[in-house]
């Protein structure tokens, strides 16, 4: 069928306009962003593997218990022994930076949409769009704005991973019981005091679930971001696909799974302990 409505054309025009007019801004973001990601990566890669493993195991032990700690120890050791340590650390660096930035944007958005009907009406459909749009699509503007590399990878990841954090922050704040809010107001609390002393602490558990979701979505996206030379495990997975190397594909995929489980269990444990 012939194309009668061409929305794509206008999107392309908008993106082109942005590229032409905001070039210096994108360049600036790219340089600083890359520097940030690379410094995190440098730290993670240059710390000896056994220290990193020990650290992760200790955190898992403290917050998530013996079983998860054992899994963390064995899992990370396996990754190291399979020869994917550096790639895993690169991926981790990308996840950390994407998650941090996603949260910096998502938490205020979540608070805003919990407090204002108008904000909610604008933000909700945007989140729906961001979550349902096929993840690969984000790679296109990322590359157009920032060309290839780690920062566009992080950019696509942030967009893809942010929605649950916004939603769960909003949910957490909306779930704060009315009587608690009323009590705080009756004692003369200001809006700011209510937010920081009542709403955020009470929303913490839900908010941490959002953090957990964001981390896991970041992880799935950074693999896809391997397609635009974001490096890390994604690139190894892609290499396996391109060469039809089932062994490489499985090993790098397994590393992703191990990393995912460790991050998930530890952040979940944080979430459960949030209130105690």
């Amino acid at each position, binding site marked *: 069928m012939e194309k009668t409505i061409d929305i794509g054309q206008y999107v392309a025009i908008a993106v082109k306009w942005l590229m032409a007019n905001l070039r210096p801004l994108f360049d600036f973001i790219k340089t600083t962003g890359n520097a940030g990601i690379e410094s995190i990566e440098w730290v993670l890669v240059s710390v000896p593997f056994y220290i990193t493993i020990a650290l992760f195991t200790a955190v898992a032990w403290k917050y998530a218990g013996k079983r998860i700690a054992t899994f963390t120890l064995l899992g990370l050791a396996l990754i190291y022994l399979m020869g994917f340590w550096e790639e895993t650390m690169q991926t981790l660096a990308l996840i950390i930076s994407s998650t941090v930035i996603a949260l910096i944007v998502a938490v205020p958005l979540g608070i805003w949409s919990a407090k204002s009907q108008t904000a909610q009406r604008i933000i909700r459909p945007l989140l729906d769009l961001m979550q349902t749009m096929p993840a690969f699509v984000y790679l296109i503007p990322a590359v157009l704005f920032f060309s290839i590399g780690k920062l566009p990878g992080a950019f696509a990841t942030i967009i893809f991973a942010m929605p649950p954090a916004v939603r769960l922050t909003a949910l957490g704040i909306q779930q704060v019981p009315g009587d608690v809010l*009323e009590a705080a107001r009756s004692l003369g609390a200001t809006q700011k005091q209510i937010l920081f002393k*009542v709403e955020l602490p009470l929303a913490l558990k839900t908010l941490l679930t959002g953090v957990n979701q964001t981390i896991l979505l970041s992880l799935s996206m950074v693999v896809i971001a391997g397609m635009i030379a974001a490096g890390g495990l994604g690139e190894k997975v892609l290499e396996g696909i391109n060469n039809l190397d089932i062994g490489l594909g499985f090993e790098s995929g397994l590393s992703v799974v191990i990393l995912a489980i460790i991050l998930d269990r530890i952040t979940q444990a944080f979430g459960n302990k949030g209130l105690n």
Partner: protein
Amino acid sequence: MKENRPVKIKVEDLVLIFGKNKENALQMLKEGSIKKEILSKTQCTVGINQANFEIYEGEFFVIMGLSGSGKSTLLRCLNRLIEPTSGNVYVNGDNITRKSHRELLDVRRTEMSMVFQKFGLLPHRTVLENVAFGLELRGEDKETRETKAQQAIDTVGLHGFERQSPAQLSGGMQQRVGLARALTNDPEVLLMDEAFSALDPLIKTEMQDELLGLQNKLKKTVVFVTHDLDEAIKLGDRIVIMKDGIIEQIGTAEEILTNPATPYVEAFVKKVDRKTIITAGTLMHEKPTHVRFGKDGPEGTLRKMRSTGLDVLPVVDEQNTFLGFVWVADAVQCANRQEKTVESILLTNVPTVSIEVTVEEMLPLITATRSPIAVIDWDSKRLLGIVSQNSVVIEATRFNEQEITKLKEHANNS
């Protein structure tokens, strides 16, 4: 009732309207339209319809009504947790409704604290931190906070629970935390919204008693909202009864029970156990026909009895001091004996009560005697009135005179 106590809170023409078309609704309300008309014409609900009342300093003031009557809403208008649509609320003569947001925060932080039905405690904080919360919001340093909070905790009997989290406590204990939190700010006014309604009956009674004790000691002005008439009567110095946002009646429990202003109030108070509320003062026949000792002889006494149709009369001296009763049969004999005074037939061993004694307390007095009860001023012993046995029985049983007569006949015949 005239009061000389200073007014703490004054509510003037307070109106609260929910909905978008408030101006029209307000206009209609002022022109005397009723709630239903306003709802159908403007889609606005009238929450509070022109409330006017004063609360005195140190008073225990109860706002009572069923759910939807607007009682909790009215309470929230006092500290503007809900913004009234029009009208004024004065606290210590200061117009709360005109205050800026900043000033309002100060009022909430220093002058009025509130206690909630569902407690409203912060689950992530310990009891001590919860109690100190108000002071924290006020910006006081940690040491002051904890000292004052500790005092409040001791006052409400929570000593030893400071480090526990609210979730570990029972409902009654949690409400003690809520009360302590309100007291920590040392407010002049305590607003309590169904504070004990979520508690089980035994704990509820216990908390009521403790609150009354506290109120006696601390002399706060308390505004207490409840749907429970028994609670209102037990706690309140005065009670406001609300229905559909309208104040139906304001008065003491006894005034409301003995003289309900509207059919609604009347229906409402029907089920109340009046024995414990109605007093001799309400029940007595004031300025009864009496015999003056020394002036009225037996003949005079019989004449008074004939003219009133009574077979027993109280006897007083020149100072109106109550001396006893004389009965018609004795008076006839006395007259036959040609005696000059009623001294020989004066019964002095008769029940006397002061004005605030309740029906429940008078009931035992009418056993084993035919005598009515004399109501006297306890200091001067002056006669104030007479309570007949029948009226005590009527109040205690809610049977009327005819029913009592019928019951008696039935019992005597069988």
